[in-house]
């Protein structure tokens, strides 16, 4: 039975390999094959991977330990959802998921009607060439369907820290983002090959870029939210190499979405857009695979197999060198002469592009420097979070300033005085609010005050530009997605700064029955209980929270002892209030009498996540509104 499944799955993968070769024929100008249409072959590509993915899911659900992958990464007593997430909680399975999304995008694009047949053929061909490379890698170096001849009774389990509902969906969402940029990459290569990087190209690429960007943002946000409540350090971003690896493609993707808009409107910045598209996909590739290959050490690392790491490096090298070579040959041809006006929206977007790339360089140096010193001088070191804060803060202030200014500028020429005049109500009210806040909270730090002021102006000006207030009706304008995302970023920055300034933390050695205090909050430590669950044992503490006599709820921080594999995890307990989160972590008890508890007050966390959600929604809304506009244009 297992052998039969192994044969079927491998044949499906080989089928995908063969169809990918057929699809890439357009690159070599072979046109005389017309048995099936482009989208039909793409459908076969997609279905072959989909079915093999479903088979893998089936193997995990039925706990078939004859398969190595299931044996090493699953356990019969695991809840169903974690059997499912175990499918991509390992190297081979996550590779298959990666390929599944790669073929899905290929299939969806082959169905789309926005581009000419020739353009579509070449794009699908480039995409299929990549699919070929990855499927070959999967078959040869990391086959998920390898079987063993032992009869294992049970599996080795999944790292308990990964047994979390959020973490079950974090990889797929992040991957849709990463892999989405593969299509943008293929579109760019096609644009360069055909020397057709223009308004039309931007119109085809726009929905895909925004969709991929939204998923990437959501994927990073989910990871960050998970770290916030699972790791129990009270923070949401640690400048960990792995987090940085996902932030870098996001920064260049954010620059890219703005360039695509400029390209669509003004038919300029062609070569810069191509550079960003190639850069974003390269960083996405490096992000996923360097993380997984073990070069950057962390919880995300599955297996350190030098062979795999080498393959990815070679693949990355081929993609980078060939695409930049193509770019060097073609960039002269795609750039159209264009007379710039210094006070136009393009300038603003260009400046912020440079600022985003500067942040990217800061993050890149901070991430790579320890690797370099380790390799060159055999000296281990880490880069402290202070480095990032100090380097990025001045860039962010400039960035906020241009983020406010650019949308106010027209695509042609604008007078700065006129803009100041139009914004006078917003400016005056924001200055007043900031001034009052500064007085009320005794803020002295000039950077903090500046960021708060600029964020407030950004929120108000963005909202007022995306909505049209007409006496009784509120009309949503076509740039609503943009204004939503920009306002979201303002809210996010406001929360980040306030959170950094007003967070509080205290550690107690507490006995049952004692009352603990932090700021105005009283924590009543009621009880400790031991419990036995299906796949772990736990010690739970019960505390109730009150503020000035008012009951606010109950905390149940917990320590879990897993047996497969043997691991201890802490579950934080958080009470979310509108303006601040109160957060309790408990320690493994060292003795019978008392227990160490760490209490945190984290202000503005809800607001911070609200900002992030608005940024993601902004991207999605842009995709939807863009679609509608496209339909209208077609009808007209």
């Amino acid at each position, binding site marked *: 039975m297992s052998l039969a499944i192994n044969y079927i799955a491998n044949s499906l993968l080989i089928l995908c390999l063969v169809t990918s070769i057929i699809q890439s024929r357009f690159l070599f100008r072979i046109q005389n094959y017309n048995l099936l249409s482009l989208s039909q072959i793409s459908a076969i590509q997609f279905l072959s991977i989909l079915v093999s993915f479903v088979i893998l899911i089936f193997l995990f659900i039925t706990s078939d330990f004859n398969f190595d992958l299931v044996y090493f990464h699953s356990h019969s007593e695991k809840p169903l959802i974690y059997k499912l997430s175990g499918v991509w909680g390992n190297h081979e399975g996550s590779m298959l998921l990666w390929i599944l999304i790669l073929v899905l995008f290929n299939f969806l694009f082959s169905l789309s009607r926005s581009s000419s047949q020739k353009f579509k053929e070449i794009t699908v061909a480039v995409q299929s060439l990549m699919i070929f490379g990855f499927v070959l890698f999967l078959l040869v170096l990391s086959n998920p369907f390898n079987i063993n001849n032992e009869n294992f009774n049970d599996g080795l389990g999944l790292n308990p820290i990964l047994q979390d509902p959020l973490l079950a969906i974090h990889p797929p969402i992040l991957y849709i983002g990463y892999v989405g940029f593969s299509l943008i990459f293929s579109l760019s290569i096609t644009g360069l090959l055909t020397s057709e990087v223009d308004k039309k190209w931007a119109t085809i690429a726009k929905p895909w870029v925004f969709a991929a960007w939204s998923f990437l943002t959501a994927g990073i946000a989910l990871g960050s939210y998970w770290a916030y409540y699972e790791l129990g350090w009270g923070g949401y971003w640690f400048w960990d190499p792995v987090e940085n690896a996902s932030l870098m493609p996001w920064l260049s993707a954010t620059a890219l979405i703005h360039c695509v808009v400029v390209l669509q409107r003004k038919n300029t910045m062609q070569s810069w857009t191509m550079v960003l598209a190639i850069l974003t996909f390269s960083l996405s590739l490096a992000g996923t695979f360097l993380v997984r290959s073990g070069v950057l050490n962390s*919880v995300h690392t599955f297996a350190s197999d030098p062979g795999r790491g080498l393959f990815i490096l070679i693949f990355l090298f081929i993609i980078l060198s060939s695409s930049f070579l193509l770019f060097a040959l073609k960039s002269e041809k795609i750039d159209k002469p264009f007379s710039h006006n210094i006070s136009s929206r393009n300038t603003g977007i260009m400046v912020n592009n440079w600022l985003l790339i500067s942040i990217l360089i*800061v993050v890149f140096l901070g991430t790579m420097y320890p690797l370099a010193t380790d390799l060159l001088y055999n000296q281990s070191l880490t880069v402290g979070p202070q480095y990032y804060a100090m380097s990025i803060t001045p860039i962010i202030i400039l960035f906020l300033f241009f983020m406010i200014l650019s949308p106010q500028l027209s695509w042609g020429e604008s007078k700065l005085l006129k803009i100041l005049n139009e914004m006078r109500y917003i400016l005056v009210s924001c200055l007043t609010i900031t001034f009052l806040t500064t007085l009320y909270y005794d803020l002295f730090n000039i950077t903090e005050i500046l960021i708060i002021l600029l964020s407030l102006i950004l929120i108000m000006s963005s909202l007022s530009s995306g909505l049209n207030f007409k006496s009784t009706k509120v009309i949503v304008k076509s740039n609503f997605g943009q204004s939503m995302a920009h306002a979201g970023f303002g809210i996010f920055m406001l929360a980040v700064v306030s959170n950094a300034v007003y967070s509080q933390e205290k550690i107690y050695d507490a006995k049952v029955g004692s009352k603990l205090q932090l700021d105005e909050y009283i924590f009543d430590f009621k009880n400790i209980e031991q419990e036995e669950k299906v796949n772990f044992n736990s010690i739970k503490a019960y505390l109730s929270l009150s503020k000035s006599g008012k009951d606010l709820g109950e905390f149940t921080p917990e320590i879990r002892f897993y047996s497969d594999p043997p691991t201890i995890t802490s579950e934080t307990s958080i009470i979310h209030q509108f303006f601040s989160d109160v957060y309790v972590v408990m320690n493994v008890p060292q003795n019978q009498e008392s227990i160490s508890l760490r209490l945190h007050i984290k202000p503005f966390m809800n607001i911070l996540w609200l900002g992030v959600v608005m940024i993601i929604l902004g991207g999605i809304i842009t995709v939807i509104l863009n679609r509608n506009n496209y339909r209208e244009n077609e009808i007209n």
Partner: protein
Amino acid sequence: MTDTVKKRLIKFLVSLIIFGIAILIIVYNLRDNIVYFYSPSEIIENNQTGSQIVRLGGLVESESVISDGDSIFHFKITDGQEQISVKYQGILPNLFAEEKGVVVEGIYMNDGRFIANKVLAKHDENYMPPEVIKSLKETGKWQE
């Protein structure tokens, strides 16, 4: 030199200067915020005392962990050759245990004690910080 070439050259130089300054600021910042990692032998050899924050890693020596209430812990970190006494106030990570690998961050004092403000948490009981593996290999105490 034609006008367009001149313009391009000026453009190029200006961006080179701006870019250069930016990189300088970043690298300067980077150097200020580096936390070096040492094994007990290295920290004694280099005599890294003073106000600079460093990381120290090795194995927690067996039967060296003492708790004196108020979440204050004393323990010794060893690399098989030298050992350093560490004082730490706070919550120890779940996987902190005697004879297991550990990395602490803090200040190495003149009297030879290490005052830690962080004990780094790792997630897997079999996980050993790569730096610790490296220093154990150097002293010949590493066992596969």
